Each structure stands twice: as structure tokens, then as C-alpha cells.
């Protein structure tokens, strides 16, 4: 474990320094109102995305450890120069926090500590675990094949890939634990970017720390920001764009706004909805009164949209060329625009029906929308969250909104929250997809807390402090409880082994196939088998969502009949929730060479 941890930490430091190098120019193009620490945070966040973007473009031709090391090495050299330059500025620029914020600092440090330590545990899980099913499957296969291509047996590997490309780089130089370990950096960046937005709305240093503490202890935010989930990183890009929208004035500042919108689109499809909303809100902030120069405003908005499209285009164009559709799996109405490959119309319809069912939350009507604040606070598990968002947004947020009702930046922020929530409500009500709004809610909760403190009423102060304590305490408890198995697995090898045996499906077969030198290519018959655990080339004729990956779109039975033509050396057959054993006893040309409960491996003779 110490060696694995050291490798992961080394890779993360290289990525961090490389991110500073790739994003140094971003820090210099930000509006004048940006504090030096904000410039450093935005440079690092943007730099990581730029680095990923370059790796993705180069990776279309070569994604080998050597290519990755060269690109990261060059970026790290630039980063060292950049950091040495920051060193002269930062000590004087850091504002001293208030005494009371020490508790908040400790809360943030503890949550980040749990994220870092838990991130060193081995990722385990079945096909329901997103990290295993596709976030890490793609990078692992890219590295094996030496190029970035969607893994056809899981269409989700075609999602926009800013985060996944970074995971690939981390896997290459830091080993299997590095991608999950990197969650500590993305969560810290999310908190820092939200603190930047909060400061612009008027929070002081201590209040920013409390905002970060409230956000970090929201279990729904934690759930979307670790174990290779990309929602935390996506939210960081959206909030960064919001911070830029407050102050973008010159053309290059609008381009920066568009750049971060583009990063959001390059991380999640939901960024496609966030871009128009962010640009609309940025325009709305500047509109009004008789002095609005509409042509100038339209031009700057055009620059922002153009910058966003340029940044996000590679991910969507690649899908269009390789998979036949820029958004893949295709959304409703795709037939008007494109003809997707590898997924039949029936499979696509089934997938869309699944998304509608999963994203229904607690209903779609107006009453359900109006009840969202209540349900998101008390019943987040219904939105596939992990325990809620704490009490403060509901209890203190309204006071913050009321206190800031005349502030133009606040009005624009509220409009953005409303539009993002409405878009989320009518599309897919998955709690972690709404992290940008949770971040804004945390800012208003702290403003509301200030309102209660300054009211001069003893009970208001006591109630508000109790709410913050209960909310942060309960959230921290839930996060600690959820992370306990990972943290325990890091310190207890025997527990890690039993967790591996318990949570890693078909472990015995994977261990056999990975160690057996005669295994060169394996035919996986069952759609639920997770190839992430497999270290060698494989064929999976029917994917997790019903994708048909082989020429002629054969099903598992037809592929089995052509196993020699497919040049597979072995066949893995399992009993799963999807199907029983598929190879009939005495099947010609197949010899049983390994068997474990519910698992059989055949040699192709």
C-alpha cells in the first residue's frame, strides 16, 4: 500500500504542477476584480482541462505512457516556472481569516482527508458502479490499445471525456489508485471556486470557509465528487463560469467565460444546457436601462459561445465520426440529425425509457417542482443522492436571498439557479447533477446566517448556529459512515482482501485469465461482466446497454459459433442476473479449463 499511495501522490503532484503550467495564461486573462488566489485557482482548474484537452487530441493518434509522460513533463516544466512566479505574490495576498473559521477549516480539512485516504482504496463493484462500468474502463482500454476510442461495449465511454482523459494519464503514471485519489484535488478545486463566487457576492474570508464546510459536508456533493464521479469537476467549471459572468467586461474576459462553459460541455452532456443558461444570465446582468449597447453585448456573447464550442467540439465531432451521432447514446429526436452505429433503434428506445424512469425523481408537475426544496433537503435518496444537502440551504437560504434581493449580482445568481434547477427538473433528476445549485445554496445559507447573527436577537443567533452545527455534523457523520469501508480497506490488508472477494464479481475467473500466459483474447458472453478488471484484450458482442460491438452485430450465441474466426483464445461464461450459462455442455471446440461457482472459462481448441 505505501508504494501504491506514493505512486498515486506523485502522479497527482505532476498533474497539479502540469495543470498550473497549462493554465498559467488563463490566470493572466481574468478580469481585474479577481484576487491573486482566485487567479491561481482558476489557472489550475482551467489548466487541468486544457491539459486533458491536449491529451485527448493527441490521444486520437497516440495514448501511450510515453506520450502522456512527454506532455505532462512539458506542462510540469511550465508549471514550475508559473508557481515560482506566484510565490512572490501570494503570501501578501492571502487575507487573514477570522478566529471562528478555524472550525470550518478543520471540517474542510477532515472531509478532504477522508476523500484522499478513501481514494487510495481499490475500486470495487459490479456493473452498477459507474467508475467500474465506464469512467475507468475507457482509460484502461485506451492505454492498452494506445489510442482514445469509445469502448463499444459500453456506450457511456463516449460521454465527454475531460475527466476520463485525466484518469487515463493518472493510471499511466500513478497506477490504479491514482484516479480515485485525484478526487481530493477536484473536490478542493470545487470548494475553492465556490469560495471565489461567494467572496464576489460579499462573503468575507471566514464566511467563505463556512460556505466550503457546508458544501463539503453535503453528502450529495461528496457522492458526486469522489470515486471517479465527474459531477464535482463539472460543477467547478459551471461555478467558475458564473464567477467570470459577474465581471467579464473585455472581449478576452468573455472568451474566458466561454472557455469554462466549454470545459463543462467537455465534462458532461448537461454542460450543453448550462452554456445557454450561463450566457443568458450574463447578458441579463448587463441588460436593462437605456444605455445597453446590444450589438456589443451580442458580439461578446458570440465570442463566449464560440470559445465554448471550440473547446467542446472535439468530443462531439469524434462521436459523430466514430459512432454516427455527436451525443452518444443518442437523445430523443436523434433520428432527425444522425444515424447512430452499434445501437439499434430498440436499444436506444429502451435506454431513453430507462433514463426517463431513473430521472423521474419525485414527479414532474408544478407541485413537485415547488416541493423540491423540501424533498432535496429531507428525501434526497429519491434523487439517487446519498443522504441529502443539509439543513442550511432550506433554513438559512431564504434569509440570504431576502438580504441580497437588491443586489444585481445576486439577482443574476438566483435567476441562474432557477433556470438550472428547472432544466434539471425536466430532464434527469439525479441529485449529483444539481451540485452547481447546491453550491449557490450554500453561499446563500452563509449569507442568511450572517443575517441571523446581525439581527440582534439572541434566539436567531442560537437557532442559526444550531442549524449549522446539526447540518455540518450530520453531513460529516453520513460521509464518514459511507467512507468507512474504503478507509478501513486502506489500513487493513485482510479487510481489503475480503472486500475484494465480496464486491468484485467473477474475481476467480479474472485472476485466472490475467495470470494465464496462453490467454490472448477472451470472448465475454454475458453483458453484465465488467471488463475493467480484465487486463487483456477481449471481445464482448453484446454490451451493457445492448450495444452490438462486432461486425454484422452478432449476439452472444452467434459470436460463440464464430469464436475461432474472431481469434479468441478463451471464452468466459458466467451465471448472472441477466442470463444463465450460455455454453452448452460438450460444445465442440471448447475445453473447460477453469471453473468456480457461477463461472466457467473455456479454451478454444
Amino acid at each position, binding site marked *: 500500500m505505501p508504494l501504491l499511495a506514493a505512486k498515486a501522490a506523485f502522479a497527482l503532484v505532476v498533474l497539479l504542477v502540469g495543470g498550473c503550467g497549462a493554465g498559467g495564461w488563463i490566470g493572466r486573462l481574468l478580469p481585474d476584480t479577481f484576487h491573486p488566489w482566485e487567479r491561481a485557482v482558476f489557472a489550475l482548474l482551467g489548466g487541468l482541462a486544457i491539459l486533458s484537452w491536449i491529451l485527448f487530441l493527441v490521444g486520437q493518434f497516440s495514448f501511450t505512457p510515453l506520450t502522456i509522460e512527454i506532455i505532462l513533463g512539458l506542462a510540469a516544466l511550465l508549471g514550475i516556472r508559473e508557481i515560482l512566479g506566484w510565490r512572490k505574490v501570494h503570501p501578501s495576498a492571502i487575507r487573514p481569516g477570522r478566529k471562528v473559521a478555524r472550525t470550518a477549516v478543520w471540517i474542510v480539512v477532515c472531509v478532504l482527508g477522508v476523500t484522499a485516504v478513501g481514494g487510495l482504496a481499490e475500486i470495487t463493484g459490479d456493473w452498477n458502479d459507474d467508475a467500474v462500468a465506464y469512467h475507468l474502463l475507457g482509460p484502461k482500454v485506451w492505454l492498452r490499445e494506445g489510442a482514445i476510442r469509445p469502448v463499444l461495449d459500453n456506450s457511456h465511454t463516449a460521454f465527454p471525456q475531460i475527466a476520463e482523459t485525466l484518469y487515463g494519464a493518472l493510471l499511466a503514471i500513478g497506477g490504479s489508485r491514482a484516479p480515485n485519489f485525484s478526487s481530493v484535488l477536484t473536490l478542493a478545486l470545487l470548494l475553492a471556486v465556490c469560495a471565489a463566487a461567494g467572496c464576489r457576492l460579499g462573503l468575507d474570508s471566514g464566511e467563505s470557509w463556512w460556505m466550503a464546510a457546508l458544501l463539503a459536508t453535503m453528502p450529495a456533493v461528496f457522492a458526486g465528487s469522489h470515486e471517479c464521479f465527474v459531477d464535482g469537476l463539472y460543477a467547478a467549471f459551471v461555478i467558475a463560469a458564473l464567477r467570470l459572468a459577474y465581471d467579464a467586461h473585455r472581449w478576452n474576459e468573455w472568451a474566458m467565460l466561454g472557455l469554462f462553459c466549454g470545459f463543462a460541455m467537455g465534462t458532461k452532456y448537461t454542460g450543453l444546457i448550462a452554456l445557454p443558461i450561463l450566457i443568458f444570465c450574463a447578458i441579463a446582468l448587463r441588460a436593462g436601462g437605456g444605455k445597453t449597447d446590444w450589438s456589443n453585448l451580442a458580439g461578446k456573447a458570440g465570442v463566449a459561445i464560440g470559445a465554448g464550442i471550440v473547446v467542446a467540439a472535439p468530443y462531439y465531432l469524434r462521436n459523430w465520426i466514430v459512432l454516427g451521432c455527436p451525443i452518444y447514446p443518442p437523445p430523443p429526436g436523434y433520428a432527425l440529425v444522425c444515424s447512430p452505429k452499434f445501437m439499434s433503434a430498440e436499444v436506444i428506445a429502451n435506454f431513453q425509457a430507462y433514463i426517463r424512469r431513473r430521472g423521474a425523481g419525485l414527479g414532474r408537475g408544478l407541485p413537485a417542482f415547488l416541493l423540491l426544496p423540501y424533498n432535496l433537503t429531507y428525501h434526497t435518496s429519491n434523487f439517487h443522492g446519498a443522504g441529502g444537502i443539509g439543513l442550511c440551504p432550506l433554513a438559512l437560504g431564504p434569509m440570504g436571498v431576502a438580504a441580497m434581493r437588491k443586489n444585481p449580482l*445576486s439577482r443574476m445568481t438566483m435567476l441562474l439557479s432557477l433556470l438550472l434547477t428547472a432544466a434539471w427538473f425536466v430532464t434527469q433528476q439525479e441529485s449529483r447533477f444539481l451540485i452547481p445549485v447546491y453550491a449557490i445554496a450554500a453561499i446563500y445559507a452563509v449569507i442568511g446566517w450572517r443575517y441571523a447573527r446581525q439581527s440582534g436577537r439572541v434566539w436567531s443567533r442560537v437557532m442559526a448556529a444550531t442549524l449549522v452545527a446539526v447540518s455540518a455534523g450530520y453531513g460529516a457523520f453520513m460521509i464518514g459512515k459511507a467512507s468507512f469501508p474504503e478507509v478501513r480497506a486502506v489500513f487493513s490488508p485482510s479487510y481489503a482482501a475480503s472486500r475484494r472477494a465480496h464486491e468484485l464479481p467473477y474475481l476467480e475467473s479474472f485472476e485466472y485469465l490475467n495470470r494465464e500466459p496462453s490467454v490472448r483474447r477472451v470472448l465475454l458472453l454475458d453483458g453484465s461482466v465488467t471488463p475493467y478488471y480484465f487486463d487483456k484484450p477481449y471481445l464482448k458482442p453484446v454490451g451493457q446497454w445492448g450495444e452490438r460491438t462486432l461486425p454484422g452485430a452478432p449476439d452472444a450465441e452467434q459470436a460463440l459459433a464464430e469464436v475461432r474466426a474472431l481469434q479468441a483464445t478463451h471464452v468466459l461464461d458466467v451465471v448472472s442476473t441477466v442470463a444463465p450459462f450460455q455454453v452448452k455442455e460438450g460444445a465442440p471446440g471448447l475445453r473447460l479449463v477453469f471453473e468456480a461457482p457461477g463461472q466457467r472459462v473455456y479454451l478454444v481448441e
Partner: protein
Amino acid sequence: MGLREGAMASRKGMRESKGSKDGFWGLVSELWMGIVLVVFLAIRVLGSETTRSLLSRWKAH
């Protein structure tokens, strides 16, 4: 107020927001915070499996 002036006034405005000192809105906010806290305690503590099992054991006893 233009954009720049409005944006610059943000922090100043926050510093000057002293909260409501009049009794009515103070009372409303206290009541609201109390309701949120009580509902949370009712759902998370009284509604928890542990409490339910303790209650059912007590009833059976």
C-alpha cells in the same frame, strides 16, 4: 446603477446588511429555522430504524 458600479457595491452592500431588527421578521425567521430543525429531527431521529425498533420494543413490553 451600471454593471461595474453594481458589482463593486456588492461587498459594500453585504457589509451594510444588518439584518432585520424589527420583531416581526425576526420572529418569522426564528419560526422558520425552528420548523426546519424540528422536521429534520422528526424524520431523521424519530423516523429512524433504531427509534422505531426501540418504540416497538417498548410497546411490546
